[in-house]
C-alpha cells in the first residue's frame, strides 16, 4: 500500500487508553486525521476523545472498515499488536514506540512482508501528509504542504529540518519517519517507487544517520529505479565514536560497518547531493525547489 493518506482514510488507534494514546488521539484528530476507532481493553467507558472503543482490532475493523492503524503500546507488546492488526486486515500500520526488541522486529517484518502490509516503524515519530492528516507526533509547526518528499530515521532532526524548510518557504508532500531501529518496516529503498510515481513530490530529501546500510540500499534503489527527481541527503553521526549506540538502537558502527564515509560515497555515486550542515541543506533544497 502507498503511504499517502487523506482525510477519508479510516484509521484505528491500538492502545488509545494509555497516556500517549489519549494525548495523541486528540492531537491527530485536531490535525484532520480520520480516527474512526480505538482499541483498548474493555472498561466501563465506550469513547475516548469522542472516538468509539473496541476490545480488539478485528471488531474495530469490522465495524468501521478501517485500513490503517497506529499502535501506541509498549515495546514488548508491539509484535502482538502487529500480528493482531495484520490478522484483522489492516493494510498500513505505524508503530512509534521505541525499544522494540530486534528479534521481534525481524518476526514482525516477515509477517508484514508476507501479508503485503506497509509497516512504518518502530522508533518513529510517524508520518504525515502536510496540512491533510498525520499518524504520530510530527509537530504542526514543521508541517507545511509542498513538493518535497521527506524520509527520516530521526524524529528531532526531521522536526528541525521541516521547521527550517517551512520558514524558508519549502513544504513537504508525504513525510515518512522510517525510524531509528536497525530492523524496521519500510526502509528508504522500499519507498523509492512510491516517490517516483507521486505527482505532488518534485524532489526527495532523506535524513539519515550512521549505522546499518539503509542509505547504501537507498542509493542502489535510486539507480535501479532511474529516479529522475532531485534527491538530497543529510547524514548525522559523522564524528560519532565506534561501538556505542548513539541514542538510536540502529545508530551503532563497528569497524567499517555502518560508517559515514561509505554512506556518503554510495549516495553521491547515485547522484544524491549530500549536505554537511542543516543550513546548507535548507539553502540547497530551497534553491532547487523555489
Amino acid at each position, binding site marked *: 500500500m502507498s503511504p499517502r493518506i487523506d482525510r477519508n482514510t479510516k484509521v484505528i488507534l491500538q492502545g488509545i487508553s494509555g497516556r500517549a494514546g489519549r494525548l495523541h488521539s486528540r492531537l491527530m484528530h485536531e490535525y484532520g486525521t480520520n480516527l474512526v476507532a480505538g482499541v483498548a481493553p474493555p472498561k466501563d467507558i465506550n469513547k475516548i476523545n469522542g472516538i468509539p472503543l473496541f476490545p480488539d482490532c478485528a471488531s474495530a475493523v469490522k465495524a468501521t472498515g478501517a485500513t490503517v492503524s497506529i499502535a501506541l503500546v509498549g515495546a514488548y507488546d508491539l509484535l502482538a499488536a502487529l500480528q493482531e492488526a495484520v490478522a484483522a486486515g489492516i493494510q498500513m500500520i505505524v508503530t512509534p514506540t521505541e525499544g522494540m526488541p530486534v528479534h521481534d522486529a525481524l518476526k514482525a517484518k516477515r509477517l508484514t512482508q508476507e501479508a503485503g502490509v506497509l509497516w512504518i516503524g518502530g522508533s518513529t515519530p510517524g508520518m504525515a501528509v502536510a496540512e491533510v492528516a498525520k499518524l504520530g507526533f510530527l509537530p504542526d509547526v514543521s508541517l507545511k504542504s509542498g513538493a518535497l518528499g521527506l524520509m527520516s530515521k530521526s524524529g528531532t532532526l526531521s522536526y528541525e529540518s521541516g521547521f527550517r524548510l517551512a520558514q524558508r518557504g519549502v513544504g513537504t508532500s508525504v513525510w515518512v519517519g522510517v525510524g531509528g531501529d536497525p530492523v524496521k518496516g519500510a526502509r528508504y529503498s522500499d519507498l523509492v517507487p512510491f516517490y517516483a510515481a507521486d505527482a505532488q513530490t518534485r524532489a526527495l530529501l532523506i535524513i539519515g544517520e550512521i549505522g546499518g546500510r539503509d542509505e547504501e540500499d537507498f542509493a542502489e534503489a535510486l539507480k535501479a529505479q532511474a529516479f529522475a527527481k532531485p534527491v538530497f541527503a543529510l547524514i*548525522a553521526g559523522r564524528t560519532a565514536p565506534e561501538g556505542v549506540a548513539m541514542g538510536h*538502537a540502529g545508530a551503532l558502527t563497528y569497524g567499517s560497518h555502518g560508517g559515514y564515509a561509505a554512506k556518503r560515497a554510495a549516495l553521491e555515486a547515485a547522484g544524491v547531493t549530500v549536505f554537511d550542515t542543516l543550513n546548507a541543506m535548507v539553502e540547497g533544497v530551497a534553491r532547487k525547489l523555489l
Partner: protein
Amino acid sequence: MYLLEHDAKLLLAHHGIPTPQGCLLTDAAQINQLPPGPWIVKGQITAGGRGKAGLIKTATTPVEVAAQTAGIIGKQAKGRTVRAVRVEQQVHGASEAYLSMLLDPAAAGVRIIMAAQGGMEIESLPQDALRIATAAPDASVLAAAAEKLAATFDGATGKALAESGRAMAGAFMATEALLIEINPLFVHSDGSWVAGDAKFVTDDSALPRQPEQHALLANADGPYLETALKDAHGCDYVVVDPAGEIALLTTGAGLSMMLIDEMRSAGLKPYNFLDIRTGGLRGETKRLVSVLQWMHQGPNVKVLLINIFAGITELGEFSQLLVSALQAVPDFKVPVVARLVGNGMEAARTVLAKAGITLHSDLDAALLEVRTHLGAGQ
C-alpha cells in the same frame, strides 16, 4: 551493546561454543590464575582494530605475561582506556576459517557468512572467498541453512563450519544477537575447532529479558557505561571528547548527533552526546540533575548549551524543571546558553530570564553566544 571479547567468549561458552582457556586480568599482579601457556595477551575494549592499536601481544613466561599486561592496561585506543586484558592459551597447528551471523534488515532474516580463510578483517578477505546465505529468524531454520552452506566446504573445514554454524545458530537466536563473528575460527586437522576471536553485538532493547546480558551492567563504572546509564536513567549519554569544552543538554538522537558534527566542523569542542528524552521527564528534575552532575565531571567544560526542539513538550514547564535542576547542582558554575523551539516559548522566556538565562530561538545565535563565553574564559 558491543561486548568485550572476554564477555563475548563467556556468553558463547554458555551457549555451547568452545573458546581457548583464558582469564581476565585487571592488574599484572594477578598472574597466579593463568591457564597453561604459552599465551596471548589481549587488551579489552569495545571496538575492533586492537592488533593495529598494539593491544595484542604474545608471552611465553608468566613474567612476560605480567610485563605485557602492565604495558597494555592504561593504554588509550579508539577513545577508550584499556582496563583489562584477556590472557589465553595460544592455539597451535590449526588452520584459520571465518564464521559470522548478522541481521539482514532487508530480508528480515539472518545472514550467514563463511570462509575457509580467516584471521584478518572481513573487508580484507578476498570477496570470492566469502560464501553467504540468508535464513529466517528461527533457530532450526538458521541451523539447517548454516549446515547447508558449510557442506560447500571440504574436509576438516567443512566439518568445523557445520558444527560451529549449528552452535552459533542456537546462540544467535537465544541471545537475541545483532552480530556474532568468530574470526579466526581455529580448525584442527580432525575437524575439531575453537573460537579464536569473537565479536558480539547484543540488542539493548532485549536486555530486560536477557538476564545474563543484563548482569554485565552491574558494574556501573565498567565497559558498558552508556548502556548502564540508559538502563538506570532512561536517557542516552555518551562522553564524545573527555577534553571537550561544551556540555550539551539536548533531546533527540539525530539532532544531537548532527549538532555535534556541525560544532566539530566549526572548530568547537563538544563534551558529550545526550538524548534526554524530554517526554520522559514526567515533571521531575531527577534525570536533569543526574546529567548536570555527569557534565560537571568534564574537567574542561566551560559552557552549557541547551538545544531542545520540542514537538509536544511544554517548554515553560521544562524551563522550570531546568532552573530547579541547575539550582540543585550549584557546583556546576558555567554560563548557560539556551535555544528552545516549541510550545510555551513565552512562558519559557520568562522563567529563564529570572534565572539570568537568555532564550534563543535561532541555533546560530545560540552558538555565537557559546563562542562569546569560550572567548571570555581564555
